[in-house]
């Protein structure tokens, strides 16, 4: 079997040894893949200007050795989203999305899912590089990233009784571990439920339905944004297991609520 050609997105790069570089890549048919680029920091020809964060590449990957790290044999640049690297706020949001994908993207899986995830990654970076970024876009892209990763929270039907939690009126809560909304009658005291305004849940539900390039049309007020950020932050931390390292810089650049 020869090395395979594929599109790829660079999620992370780490220098290794004297001249190698280890890349965390997202591939449309594979999902997340770790590959070593031998001599990448020395070679001016094979990897010229390609192994950098946010680079959309055409790569040649050798995955022949079972159990061993894949080897990157070549790469050509397709797109580099250069607007992200020259704007600190875009860079903060871009890094956050890359880290989220790097931590949660599956290695393997159904092809339709990995292709959808890859398409989301490229489309979201295009959006970040082309449109003004703010706290609202940050929250909505965080939500869409979780959805693309197969971790879509349930915002309308109660995860306990499957009834329409928003129609019933009254208090509504969100249960992080159960991954969705809990209606008033199903809520039990002392189980770590997060009280949420129904308006926030409706807005987030809409955020899941809109096309990515239309997300800026959703008007989200400061209180709603603060609540959505808290909810998504807890949901995401539950699934990642740790606080994302890029979150600190993101909070500095794009707080969900401007103070």
């Amino acid at each position: 079997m020869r090395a395979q050609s594929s599109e790829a997105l660079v999620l992370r790069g780490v220098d290794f040894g004297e001249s190698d570089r280890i890349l965390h890549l997202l591939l449309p048919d594979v999902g997340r893949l770790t590959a070593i680029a031998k001599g990448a920091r020395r070679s001016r020809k094979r990897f010229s200007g390609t192994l950098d964060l946010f680079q959309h590449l055409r790569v040649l990957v050798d995955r022949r050795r079972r159990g061993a790290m894949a080897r990157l044999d070549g790469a050509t640049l397709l797109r580099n989203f250069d607007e992200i690297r020259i704007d600190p706020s875009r860079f903060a949001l871009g890094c956050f999305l890359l880290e989220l994908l790097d931590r949660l993207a599956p290695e393997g899986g159904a092809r339709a899912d990995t292709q959808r995830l890859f398409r989301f990654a490229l489309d979201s970076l295009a959006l970040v590089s082309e449109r003004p970024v703010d706290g609202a876009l940050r929250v909505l892209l965080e939500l869409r990233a979780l959805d693309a990763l197969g971790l879509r929270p349930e915002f309308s039907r109660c995860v306990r009784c499957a009834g329409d939690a928003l129609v019933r009126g009254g208090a509504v809560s969100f249960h992080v571990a159960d991954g969705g909304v809990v209606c008033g009658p199903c809520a039990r005291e002392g189980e770590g439920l997060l009280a949420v305004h129904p308006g926030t849940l409706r807005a987030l539900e809409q955020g899941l339905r809109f096309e990515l390039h239309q997300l800026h049309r959703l008007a989200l007020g400061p209180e709603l944004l603060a609540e959505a950020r808290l909810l998504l932050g807890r949901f995401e931390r539950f699934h990642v297991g740790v606080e994302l390292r890029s979150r600190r810089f993101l909070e500095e650049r794009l707080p969900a609520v401007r103070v």
Partner: protein
Amino acid sequence: MRTAPPIDRLVAALKRLPGIGDKSATRLAFFLLGAPDAVGQELGEAIARLKRDIVLCAECFDLTDASPCAVCRDPKRDPSLLCVVEEPADLAAIDATGKFRGHFFVLGGALSPIDGVGPEELRIRELEERVRHGIVKEVILATNPNAEGDATAHYVSERLRPQDVTLTRIAYGMPLGGDLEYADHVTIGLSLDHRRAID
């Protein structure tokens, strides 16, 4: 191969150095064993003194044996020009060109949120303080031309913009001895954007 514990210890220590594998470490250990005593003593003393004698320059944050360092003390250098680099090795590379006669400032890295490196981990406040004195007229941002380096340059320029100082970025383009056929289209595009007239 069975060797005496002192040799094993030295091999293990040498293997921790970058670029040194098992074979190279063993070869170096046996070389030192066969060399005159003075060679080993000189090497051991040089390593021991390295950490003891090296300090950070209080002005540019380069590694030096005396603070301020020789570059910061040099009266022939132009104090109105300040070149900002990520690491001491970058400073050495620029200084070795002999083309730059201004002063330096070492940031201590580049923004890398994914690795947990934010502005607080870099010497950006110290840089602001240095520029605030008013002597510096131009800050040359010479961070690496990669995503982290570019983002750092733009973040630093955003922080320094309120001050009365010219902000410039080192040029992008084809490397000397490079080959257009193998260069990526972004680098070629930037070379064209930054083309210059031939005198």
